[in-house]
């Protein structure tokens, strides 16, 4: 069975943001031929690009997605090991080099994004395992002079009817001589032993003893460390600089202008950083020198008053609004946000006359390699990227401009020796490519009996595709699909519906941030449906249920979350619940938040999150992603905002852009719907519901509506 065709089509519909990858073929001409993962273990059986088996029994799975915390170094090996019937204790992982063999089967390039790793690998990795298994069985059949059909494989050994055994290690050499099968049969889901079970993560040991190598830990012979002074304002350029003091500081080897600023190269990070701070730079600040987010939001509010590009139009929303029995208007605002990966950006480069090697934690190997090749003046195939562990990604490490990789190539060129560019936390936060600020002006109405009649959403915000290689995804649309995803497919049954999009042109670099457009559309739509429920004097859970009768998967997660959270049951005094449901990245999520508000301070006590992500692979990892997604989203909802004055970012580090901490963290309960539908995503779908569930709970607790993030009770209405 192949679901790839369907997946491709549906993916295009739902996750346009990254599906722009389909265009990459045009952007990156030519096929490249680089080696498959090099063999470091003396493995002898390498039936395909995804697998090696050694005479030592070790099964090494080569993973074509980046491990940024979401568990691909466990989930993808599980898929392969399942069909291989491997001994799970012998399974190891390795990151894939850049090679078209490792392209995302749907996006056509190497990328980790769109919550797509597991579903895109679901058959790819199982096929790889099944093919190898057939070859191992064929090798055993030859050895025993038996009919392969009489043999079976189990936990790393091939057995015959009399339970005679040969291990995969013993068979590896002979299996390497077998012809790969033209066709493989995959197991029936009922026969799965690994898939669907909470197998422990394979990468935990090296993450708790200091051995795991992140990009920032890379150390190559002769390598120096560089810190770059970048413009304090987006679009700024170096006019002149004075490095007389910095040049003579200890450890400093080179100070040079690079396209992004001034690079200081030294023996160690600290020496480079101290010297970088001592370089005096005169900047041409460019057009953004007076930029202010408060002015920008004022303009957004004005813009929202006029009609915009139509995204969706059902019925006649204007007429319906004009005749409405009861209507309500609300303006929701969300700020720019930093991805704020725990590991600040970094990139190590060894640039030679005829080759370039790069070590970094990236989500975007194909694009980064092409960009690095261009910067280095080398053909693509002369550039290789070694993907390290990523200390978080959340979309920042998949930058269409490959900013941190290209810059490091320029620094290496200037330095003339291998370098690692390390960004300070402040550099990272000020480095741009944020989640764009957005405004949603929504007006809706209900009839005399409380049924919704109309809804008009008007969005104002920057496009993440405009000006990038993904721009052609917008062709013929006049709006960025990634801006409106999650509102353009509003599931509620409302006869008159309009969605309109104003594309703001602002010089702040923006891009995808965990859950992309859903990060703001989920907030605005799920808060507004709650406002309509209040207008209709209905229970917000029941109100949603009545409008979702044609959406059984939405309903199922909504019901599960409500039931597990004890919706309607009494709570300690001062506490209240809020609910939200949203579909994103092929998965359905509903959350119920329990909050209290004391002296204007919001405390989230508990979050119950229910997901339907189709056929799932590792429920332990899914629970972790739902927990992490809720905490990531709650941090944004409660604390985070990037603001600009005079073109300068006002936030610098964790004290001004806080992240939720242990003492603020709610209890989180996760539930998974059993499903045989095709697999959906899990890294991002757990994000969109958290902010609206909290905001709706605040309304239930206080009667005040939160329409602006981060939540400040002084701004609630």
């Amino acid at each position, binding site marked *: 069975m192949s679901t790839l065709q369907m997946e491709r089509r549906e993916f295009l519909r739902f996750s346009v943001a990254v599906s722009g990858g389909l265009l990459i073929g045009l952007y990156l001409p030519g096929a490249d031929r680089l080696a498959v993962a090099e063999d470091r273990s003396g493995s002898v059986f390498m039936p395909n690009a995804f697998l090696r088996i050694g005479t030592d029994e070790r099964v090494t799975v080569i993973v074509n997605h980046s491990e940024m915390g979401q568990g691909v170094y466990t989930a993808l090996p599980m898929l392969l090991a399942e069909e291989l019937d491997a001994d799970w204790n012998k399974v190891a992982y390795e990151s894939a080099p850049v090679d078209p063999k490792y392209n995302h089967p749907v996006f056509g390039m190497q990328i980790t994004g769109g919550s797509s790793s597991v579903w895109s690998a679901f058959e790819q990795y199982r096929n790889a395992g099944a093919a190898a298994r057939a070859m191992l069985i064929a090798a055993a059949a030859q050895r025993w002079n038996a009919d392969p059909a009489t043999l079976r494989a189990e936990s790393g050994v091939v057995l015959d009817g009399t339970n005679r055994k040969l291990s995969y290690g013993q068979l590896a050499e002979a299996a390497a001589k077998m012809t790969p099968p033209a066709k493989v049969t995959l197991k029936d889901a009922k026969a799965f032993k690994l898939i669907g079970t909470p197998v422990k993560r394979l*990468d935990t040991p*090296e993450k708790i*003893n200091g051995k795991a190598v992140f990009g920032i830990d890379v150390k190559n012979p002769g390598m120096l460390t560089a810190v770059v002074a970048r413009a304090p304002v987006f679009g700024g350029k170096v006019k002149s600089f004075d490095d007389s003091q910095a040049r003579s500081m200890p450890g400093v080897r080179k100070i040079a202008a690079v396209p992004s600023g001034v690079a200081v190269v030294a023996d*160690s990070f*600290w020496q480079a950083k101290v010297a970088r701070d001592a370089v005096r730079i005169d900047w041409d600040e460019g057009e953004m020198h007076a930029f202010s987010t408060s002015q920008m939001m004022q303009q957004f509010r004005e813009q929202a008053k006029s009609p915009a590009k139509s995204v969706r139009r059902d019925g006649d929303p204007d007429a319906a609004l004009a005749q409405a029995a009861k209507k309500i208007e609300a303006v929701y605002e969300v700020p720019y946000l930093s991805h704020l990966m725990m*590991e600040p950006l970094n990139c190590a480069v060894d640039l030679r006359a005829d080759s370039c090697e790069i070590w970094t934690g990236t989500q975007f190997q194909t694009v980064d390699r092409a960009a690095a090749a261009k910067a280095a003046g080398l053909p693509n195939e002369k550039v290789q990227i070694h993907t390290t562990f990523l*200390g978080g990604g959340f979309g920042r490490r998949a930058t269409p401009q490959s900013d941190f990789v290209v810059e490091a190539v320029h620094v290496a060129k200037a330095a003339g020796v291998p370098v690692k560019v390390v960004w300070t936390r402040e550099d990272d936060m000020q480095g741009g490519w944020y989640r764009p600020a957005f405004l949603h002006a929504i007006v809706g109405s209900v009839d005399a009996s409380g049924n919704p009649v109309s809804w008009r959403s008007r969005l104002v915000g920057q496009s993440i595709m405009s000006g990038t290689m993904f721009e052609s995804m917008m062709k013929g649309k006049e709006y960025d699909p990634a801006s409106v995803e999650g509102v353009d497919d509003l599931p509620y049954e409302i006869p008159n519906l309009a969605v309109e999009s104003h594309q703001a042109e602002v010089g702040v670099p923006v891009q995808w941030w965990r859950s992309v457009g859903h990060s703001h559309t989920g907030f605005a739509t799920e808060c507004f449906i709650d406002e309509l429920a209040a207008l209709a004097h209905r229970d917000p859970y029941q109100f949603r249920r009545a409008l979702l009768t044609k959406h059984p998967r939405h309903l199922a997660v909504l019901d599960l979350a409500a039931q597990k959270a004890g919706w309607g049951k009494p709570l300690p005094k001062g506490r209240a619940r809020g609910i939200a449901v949203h579909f994103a990245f092929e998965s359905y999520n509903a959350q119920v938040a329990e909050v209290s508000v004391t002296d204007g301070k919001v405390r989230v006590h508990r979050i119950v999150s229910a997901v339907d992500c189709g056929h799932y692979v590792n429920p332990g990892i899914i629970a972790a992603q739902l927990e992490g997604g809720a905490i990531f989203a709650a941090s944004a909802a409660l604390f985070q905002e990037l603001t600009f004055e005079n073109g300068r970012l006002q936030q610098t580090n964790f004290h001004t852009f806080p992240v939720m901490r242990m003492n603020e963290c709610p209890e989180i309960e996760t539930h998974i719907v059993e499903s045989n539908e095709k697999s959906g995503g899990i890294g991002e779908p757990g994000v969109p519901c958290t902010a609206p569930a909290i905001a709706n709970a605040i309304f239930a607790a206080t009667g005040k509506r939160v329409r602006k993030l981060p939540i400040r009770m002084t701004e609630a209405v």
Partner: protein
Amino acid sequence: MISFSVNRQGVNLDVDPSTPLLWVLRDNLGLTGTKYGCGMAQCGACTVHLNGEAVRSCVAPVSRAAGKEVTTIEGLSPDMSHPLQRAWIAEDVPQCGYCQSGQLMSAAVLLRENPRPSDDDIDQAMTGNICRCGTYPRIRKAIHRAAGLMSTGGAK
């Protein structure tokens, strides 16, 4: 010359005494398990033990370590046998893993001082350690589990 011990090995280094201990560990000694997250005592990623106390090595000048004993994540146990490491595996704590060295080093001091910590004790001890991936619920469970392992003789 500054002399101190790291994971029970003596080191003598010729470095600027104002250099943060974090960068001496990472760049001079190659002990990259200790991480940089903020450089201003905000996130705890750089937590190490200095004479048994948890310190933020990003703001501790290396001169502060002179004559003292530094323990980093690489020295928490020689063989992953520390009850916290065992509990971390059992609870599948890490996601990206970048904050986890610091989390473990903070938790190790907590457990040594308080073998049966309450949730409030955990909040107190662990609030200085940020995890961007949101592994807090599992860290909490794993600390309780490690406390259990220790009380049943699981500790070495």
